[in-house]
């Protein structure tokens, strides 16, 4: 049965050495068990890429009934060389918020995937999709129907609202200032239509982080970054502060907490055993809470800040999101609905005014923040800026002369 063996992949085999898990070994193991020839073809083409230092996939159009997005089509550009890799499409699946899985649910996905596709998975893509890599067009609909019956739905691709991402959230983190998982689920369910059918100028991403540590990388990588914060005072456990100073020492507290506070909001008290936090100076950066996890906790009046406009390099260079709403309560369904209403108006304005392939942050920069605020009905707020403008050329409302 020599014809069933893997072909030599000399350019990849070095990646089987070394202590870190090897994806090449994983693929080979998969092929040797299943004999799925697509896996062999993909390894052969990848080996060729390593030899020639070029990629050989091109896009096309593959989809499922009623959807305009969610499958990334990949056809080999050299099918004559690698006929087994002729089609290698990816199905993007929206995972549970926070990437929490039960093994029962995950095993169901794995079994369905092995039945219809290659068995290769990306866990997870950079936007947060569970990516089933390697299905042929003929199997796509059946694969999706089987998954959809179990509550799984396609993610975004192209000019759509993209699959969301969220941090571990209140499921297992004391820093979470709102329910990132619930908000992720509700907001992305609301935008399901915009996720599945491209009808926007370009992509729109939501990411949900429970605090300023921003474990979902929301400010950097999403158009709508939802960051947990609080309005009142950091909760201080005095006994734990004293214990911290006793065990770690005054020098550690001084060098790693007090002087690391970006706004000098923390002072050591005369007794040498306690600290005072000037909460009106605190910018909720999270540093002191991260260092003194037992002694300090976020305040009780919690909610979210919304930062808008983050995106990657294309095409004006990297942009980080900036504050649009410094604080919103996010406790119940009504709060989530109010958030969705606000986002709806932002997406509407952007969809109507953006240039092709323009992210909302680029649109805001092009038309000016004033126009965007007027359009979506938000008041200007000093939290939106690091400093007021320093150039004198602007036009405030005026009365016509004569």
């Amino acid at each position, binding site marked *: 049965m020599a014809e069933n063996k893997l072909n030599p992949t000399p350019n990849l085999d070095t990646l089987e050495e070394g202590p870190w898990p090897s994806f090449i070994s994983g693929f080979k193991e998969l092929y040797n068990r299943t004999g799925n020839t697509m896996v062999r073809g993909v390894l052969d083409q990848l080996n060729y890429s390593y030899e020639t230092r070029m990629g050989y996939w091109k896009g096309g159009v593959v989809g499922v009934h009623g959807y305009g997005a969610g499958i990334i089509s990949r056809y080999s550009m050299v099918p004559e060389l690698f006929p087994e890799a002729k089609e290698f499409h990816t199905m993007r699946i929206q995972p549970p918020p926070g990437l929490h899985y039960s093994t029962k649910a995950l095993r169901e996905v794995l079994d369905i995937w092995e039945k219809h596709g290659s068995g290769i998975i990306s866990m997870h893509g950079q936007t947060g999709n569970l990516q089933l890599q390697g299905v042929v067009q003929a199997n796509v609909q059946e694969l999706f129907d089987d998954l959809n019956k179990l509550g799984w739905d396609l993610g975004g691709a192209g000019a759509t609202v993209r699959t969301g991402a969220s941090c571990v959230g209140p499921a297992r983190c004391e820093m979470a200032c709102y329910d990132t998982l619930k908000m*992720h689920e509700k907001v992305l369910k609301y935008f399901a239509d915009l996720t599945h059918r491209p009808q926007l100028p370009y992509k729109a991403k939501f990411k949900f982080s429970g605090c300023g540590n921003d474990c979902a990388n929301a400010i950097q990588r999403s158009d709508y970054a939802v960051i947990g914060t609080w309005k009142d005072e950091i909760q201080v456990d005095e006994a734990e502060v004293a214990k911290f100073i006793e065990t770690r020492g005054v020098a550690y507290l001084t060098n790693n907490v007090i002087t690391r506070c970006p706004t000098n909001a923390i002072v050591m008290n005369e007794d040498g055993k306690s600290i005072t936090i000037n909460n009106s100076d605190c910018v909720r950066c999270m540093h002191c809470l991260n260092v003194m996890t037992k002694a300090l906790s976020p305040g009780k009046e919690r909610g979210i800040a919304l930062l808008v406009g983050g995106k990657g390099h294309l095409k004006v260079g990297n942009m980080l999101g900036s504050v649009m709403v410094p604080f919103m309560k996010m406790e119940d369904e009504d709060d989530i609905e109010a958030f969705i209403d606000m986002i709806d108006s932002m997406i509407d304005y952007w969809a109507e005014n953006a240039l092709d392939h323009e992210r909302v942050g680029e649109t805001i920069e092009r038309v000016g923040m004033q126009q965007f605020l007027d359009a979506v009905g938000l008041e200007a707020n000093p939290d939106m800026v690091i400093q007021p403008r320093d150039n004198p050329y602007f036009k405030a409302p005026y009365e016509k002369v004569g």
Partner: protein
Amino acid sequence: MAKREYQTVESGPHTYWDMLHPTIQKNYGQWKYHDRPRPGVLHHVSHTGDEVWTVKAGTHRQVTVDIARRLCDIADTYCDGFLRWTVRNNVEMTTDKEANVEPLIKALEAAGHPVGGTGNSITSMAHTQGWLHCDIPATDASGVVKSIMDLVYDEFKREEMPNRVKLSTSCCEINCGGQADIAIVVQHTRPPRINHDILASTCEMPSTVARCPVAAIRPTKVNGKPSLMVVEEKCICCGACFGACPAMEINHPEYSKLAIWIGGKNANTRSRPTNMKLVAHGLPNNTARWPEVAEKVLTIIKAYKEGGRDWERVGEWAERIGWKKFFEVTGLPFDKYMIDNYRHARNSFNQSAHIRF
């Protein structure tokens, strides 16, 4: 076409509540604090008095049904059938029984997944699809990640860096790998070659022209047929046009290079989130182990480990010692291309007499 019987349910993200361990459900939103008993293990204590231990382990991101099933087996044995992934492709197994922690660590490591990635470690590298699956990459990503993570394996398992170190790699200048403390990103060094034979039949010309950030693409005629041209003096080699039009052939085995960027930071801790900055470029795309890139990454890591103060991220360290010193201690050459000449470039100039000697 046969009549479709099944009616799709457009449900969006899968529900999460059933994906949570019962002890996690019970203590949802009630966590009081956490600590780290050892590298790779988090210990969370609830206001209810309940405790959970989470063991974090590295994965290869490009997994298979076999690998995922093995992780499910481990989660079934020690974690009552629940597990989660992090945004940096680590797997997390949470148990409410302290006695499960050691055997859980052993089981994960026996399955080839190093336990670590917590606290001040070098955690798993965020990365893109590369030659394995993307349609526009100039390099592979999984291979670069494997090559680098093999070299920093011990630092993944320890917590000995000044602060956490996040790495990323991206196979084109779109940089899906994202901002990181140390990032490896493709850098195209020549304008695209134009494949006029396929351009008119493959590409929508107006949208390709519009895609260029510096208006370097113009309509033209080649051999009497409509096509596009690139004004090479204006082109910034970003590769944006290639995404719109595969005839704009930006990738090249020799002239698509790699660059190293440092100081990207997503957290708001201490300083605001920051973009990463260019510190090395023009490095060869040398499959399958990228030794020239790896050597520079290791040099930066070593200098940061030696010079960074507690809690300083790579970018914060470079800011404190000054970029001049950064180039001195790493031995990386600074050149004129590291001075920004794009939008808002002046914001990065030293508009002061603050000079270090």
